[in-house]
């Protein structure tokens, strides 16, 4: 007797769920729009907050980049989680033989990709508005690993907070202390890269980001199923 219903193994599950996230986003463009507008507004605010105190706003470049990403990601991840929980999608997914870990990993990957897409617009916008040259390609590992960190923690916290009454006010209170190592490492590494330090000097920060990502993704994968169960 053959198994007519073969449950795909986890990488395939992740791939299918990821396709779903990307398709949804391509059709509605909701998350990216929110991210871009919010990020550009943040840049504007930073420019004027800091311009008055120092003529040279470029020293704030890493901070502006990462704070914009921080705000943009917390907003959009929360938005997508609320949408999913309100339509009952996550509960529905849990009824299928899909492993909760796949749901989590696919969401983290999707949110990371959206953050990276945000950077395609954010980085040129920053160089344009702040009159600096486009940051070099060496920033890429930092941006990718930082985005993964922001997405992983953002996703697990948002997922846990669904159906909670005061979620809007609780989200930043819970999320930002947990993201402190990511912001610290990313801004420091970005600053060092922009200032021209060598790989040997800033590679330790890449290591910290990588460790954060691995530790948080592994831990969150293990507890994600508890977060979303009814």
């Amino acid at each position, binding site marked *: 007797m053959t198994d007519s219903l073969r449950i795909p193994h986890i990488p395939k599950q992740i791939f299918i769920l990821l396709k779903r996230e990307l398709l949804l986003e391509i059709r509605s463009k909701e998350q990216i729009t929110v991210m871009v507008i919010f990020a550009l507004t943040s840049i504007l605010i930073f420019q004027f907050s800091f311009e008055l105190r120092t003529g040279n706003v470029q020293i704030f470049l890493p901070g502006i980049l990462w704070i914009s990403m921080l705000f943009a990601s917390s907003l959009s991840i929360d938005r997508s989680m609320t949408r999913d929980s309100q339509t009952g999608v996550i509960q529905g997914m849990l009824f299928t033989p899909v492993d909760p870990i796949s749901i989590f990993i696919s969401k983290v990957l999707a949110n990371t990709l959206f953050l990276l897409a945000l950077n395609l617009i954010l980085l040129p916008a920053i160089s344009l508005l702040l009159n600096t040259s486009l940051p070099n390609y060496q920033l890429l590992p930092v941006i990718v690993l930082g985005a993964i960190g922001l997405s992983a923690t953002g996703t*697990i*916290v948002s997922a846990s907070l669904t159906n909670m*009454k005061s979620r809007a006010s609780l989200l930043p209170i*819970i999320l930002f202390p947990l993201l*402190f*190592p990511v912001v610290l490492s990313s801004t420091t590494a970005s600053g060092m890269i922009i200032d021209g330090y060598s790989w040997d000097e800033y590679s330790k920060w890449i290591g910290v980001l990588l460790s954060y990502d691995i530790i948080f993704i592994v831990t969150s994968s293990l507890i994600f199923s508890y977060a979303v169960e009814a």
Partner: protein
Amino acid sequence: MSRANLLFGFTSLFMLLLSSYLSLVSSPIEKTQGIHQKIFYLHVPLAFLAYLAITLVFISSIMYLWKRTAHWDQVARVSAEIGIITTTLVLISGSLWGRPVWGAWWSWSDARLVTTLVMWLIYMAYLMLRSLGGFSEQTAKLGSIIGILGFINVPITYFSVYLWTFLHPLPTLQSSDDRPENSILIPFLLSLFSYILFFLYIGYLRLQIERASDTLKNLKQRVYS
């Protein structure tokens, strides 16, 4: 309150007073820091308790997610409460220690200080969640998740700030500890022991109250619905 309970309470209170006396009065005045060094007898035990508390939150969060008995959630809540109190006192005492001795109320180049601040924020997040989230299993689960994530965040935070201080070297508020002599070590150990005893006692009392309060809330939900 049972007799053993009362005895324990008085013992810990007595020990606390005794160790405070020893620390303040009979221990020697240290050469370089002067009288301010005595804050150390209070600051370090409290710091130990603060970090112990978050470890307890972590362990009880895991146990709650595993066993789903209310007991573990109660332990987590009580530990978080004791944690925020001790962490607040650590930050205040550290700041008031640093100002006369090193001239600064605060230093971002001190990894331990910054990590303690981040831990304070994590405690606050946990407690705000428990108070705003209402009394339900969902909130307890969520609390456990934050407890777990918050705990693993602490060593990562410490390491990243420690790494950062090499780029921004400023005098740190905590000097390196070389081997303390007996006249300092003994009051310190006594102090450490009595603070642990005292907060264990308080924690135990608080746990009883939390258990009663939970039973009461469950009853209320049944009677008034």
